[in-house]
Every structure is written in C-alpha cells, then in structure tokens.
C-alpha cells in the first residue's frame, strides 16, 4: 500500500504551478517509475500533482536555436522518434535502453533528470549536447544548464515551487560527428548502468576537431572530462594520444571520487570502452 496523500491532476501548466505553489508538502508526479517505488518504501507527501496530462509539456518541437523536449515526454517516444535519432543519436540510444518496455512507456525524461541518479541514462547524452533546462514557477521562469542543475547525487537545484518544463538542445545536429551511447550493466533489461559513456566526436583529416564525452556511474554526478576534451582538440588521432587522454580521464575520475572498491572492475572496463570510442 502507498502512504496516504491527496492527488490532483493538472490539465495546464498554469494549473500545475498553482497547485505546486498553493498546496502544502507537494510533490510532482510524472510517470511514477521512481517516485511511486520510493513511496512504497515509505516516502510520503501530503499532495501529489500529476503533470502527465499537461499537453504543452509533452513532445519534441523545433525552435529558433535548436529543439526542445517537453519534460513529460516518455523514454519510449524519444527512443522511437526519427527526429531524435537524427539529431541526438546518443539520447535516442540511451532512452531505448532504460528499464523495460513498460518503464519506457511510463517514465519521462524530466523525471529521469529530477531523480538525478549518478546512473541515469539520459544525463550523459544530454551533457554531450549541452542541454539547458527551463524551470518555471508562479514568479516566472529561469534557464539552467543541466551540468549546474544536478548538484549532488539525487539532488538538484530545483526549488520547491518550481516545475521542470522543457529540455533545450541548442544545436540541431552534430553534422559529420560520430555519436553514440554505450553502457555496461549486470544484465540486458531492468538494469541500472554500472558504467555509461555518451559521445559525439568530430574528426577531420586525422585530427580530433571536437570531442565531447560524458561519463555516467563513475562519479557522484555524470560528468564531462573537459580538460581532456580540450587536450584532444586539434590533436592527432594517434594511438599514443588516445592512450594518454584516456589515462588523464581515469586520473580525473579517481581525483573526483577517491579510490573505490568497484574501481578494480570499473577502471579497466572504462579504459577499454573509452579507447575504443576514441579509435572509432
């Protein structure tokens, strides 16, 4: 049984914001694949506001700068979208690997971000794409980079009166980039990523032109090894450079996280994964 609460279903964004501001001890519900599980374990709120019926928070649309994804768009919809396949291949792949068909039909991209798990599958691809979030409240809206939004494992900068409404990707397509997402899990389905890497790499005449990497499940928050990305820029695509740069990434991870028992396994696996990704 779930703890007792009162639930409201918002039909518009304004209605959702009114509930969030007006009600006491309130939590936003989207797909429920994380929240309801936690509530079964005892997490309790006085009120839930279901935002899945808010039409403007669903779907993918183009804008002047690039495109935006409504926060309650499901993983299934994102993984099946031809547009996402074309313009954010790593995100498409990641969404297709989450949980199970049922989880992908229910769970949303916004929920995955707010849950802010170090192993969240949608975060590394969105970091590669420099995603920006829109957070709305009664008082107005603000934009924040995803990289700044997640402040600790399972913790975001979202305030209690705010609603995550959109995820923006500025640049439409990484043209001539090779882009992907790979993860290591204990089994194929219904698994939490033990390691994950999203990448978008542009090479030109044997040189790395732009390398974007995001690594999940290794550090408290998925991260971009910016120093290494910078190091690779304009550098030759040679075995020695690849090995050197991966070594730098692994050292950076150890610096951030400290030594962990799981690293006996994770570090060698990540090393091979990253080297193979850079080799292409």
């Amino acid at each position: 049984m779930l703890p007792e609460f009162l639930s409201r279903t918002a039909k518009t964004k304004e209605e959702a914001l009114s509930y969030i501001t007006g009600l006491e001890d309130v939590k936003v519900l989207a797909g429920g694949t994380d929240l309801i599980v936690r509530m079964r374990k005892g997490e309790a709120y006085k009120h839930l506001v279901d935002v899945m019926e808010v039409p403007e928070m669903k779907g993918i649309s183009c804008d002047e700068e690039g495109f935006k994804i409504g926060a309650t768009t499901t993983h299934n919809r994102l993984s099946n979208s031809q547009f996402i396949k074309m313009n954010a291949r790593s995100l498409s792949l990641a969404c297709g690997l989450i949980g199970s068909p049922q989880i992908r039909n229910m769970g949303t991209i916004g929920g995955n971000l707010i849950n802010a798990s170090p192993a969240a599958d949608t975060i590394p691809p969105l970091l590669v794409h420099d995603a920006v979030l829109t957070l709305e409240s009664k008082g107005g809206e603000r934009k924040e980079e995803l990289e700044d939004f997640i402040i600790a494992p399972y913790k975001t900068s979202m305030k209690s009166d705010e609603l995550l409404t959109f995820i923006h990707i500025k640049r439409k397509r990484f043209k001539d980039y090779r882009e992907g997402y790979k993860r290591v899990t204990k089994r194929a389905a219904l698994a939490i990523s033990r390691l994950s890497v999203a990448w978008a790499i542009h090479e030109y005449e044997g040189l790395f032109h732009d390398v974007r990497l995001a690594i999940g499940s290794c550090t408290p928050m998925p991260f971009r090894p910016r120093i290494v990305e910078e190091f690779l820029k304009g550098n030759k695509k040679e075995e020695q450079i690849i090995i050197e740069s991966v070594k730098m990434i692994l050292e950076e991870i150890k610096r951030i996280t400290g030594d962990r028992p799981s690293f006996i396994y994770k570090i060698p696996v990540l090393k091979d994964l990253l080297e193979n990704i850079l080799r292409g």
Partner: protein
Amino acid sequence: MVTIDFTLNGKRVTVDVNDNETLLFTLREKLSIKSVKEGCSIGECGTCTVLIDDETHYSCLTLSSKVTGRDVKTVEYLGNIIELHPLQEAFISCGAVQCGYCTPGMLLSAYSLLLKNKDPQDEEIKRAISGNLCRCTGYIQIIEAIRYAAGILKQNC
C-alpha cells in the same frame, strides 16, 4: 476519493477510487479482474502488466486516477475459455505456460508487440517481453509461442 471513468476491455466503467490507489488494486479489488497479479510491486516483474491505450504499463506503479478517459485492456480482452486468442492457443500448444503467474502479463506484452509488428524477429520478441519475468524459465517456449501466433495471425488477415 474520486470517481473515475475509463474503458476496460471494451466496456465503459465508472468506479470510486482513493487518491493513493493503484490501478492494480482497483482492477483486482473493485473490478474483479484477478488476472492482473501483484508480484514485486516496484515495476520489475511485469505480472501486473496492463495495456493503456495499447501500450504496456505496470499497474502497480500507476495511480488509478491516471487512466481517466483512457482505454485499459487486461488479458480478459484477448479471449475467454470458449474462444481463446491465437496467442493464448499458441502459449498452450508450445508449452509456454507452467505456473501461469507471469502468463497474463506476458500475453499482453506479446499482444502489444504484434499490434505494432506483425512479423517480429526473435530479438524483437525478447525485447518486447524483457519487462516480464518468468521464474519457471519458460522463455524459449514463450518466444516460440509468440512467433507461432504471429504466423497464425498473419494467415488470418
């Protein structure tokens, strides 16, 4: 308490539900749909699977209020004891049923797949049932049954 209205297996139903009530509870305890089972209660085992607008969902994680105005299907929609659905026939003839606890959920995942994909490859079948666990380890027979049913359904249309 709120009154919700939805289509269940092709018929309109109206039922009073508590705010914190799951669809699993409403179906089993208020609408006598006992084919929908409670297993893990955390969205992993799939025995509570239902179709909402023909897509598979875990009813243990779905608040009943979410299905207002929607189309909900359980295995009762597929067939009955007199006239089984070709998928159900195939599950029997291929030996895909052992204890039967996962079967209603498995059938719904298979049915949802065949709605979208008339001729699925084995990998697509495996992916479609990856959210449904069978602890009698009948996966091979289940995959065979779905493949067999797909063939029968294709002949029929």
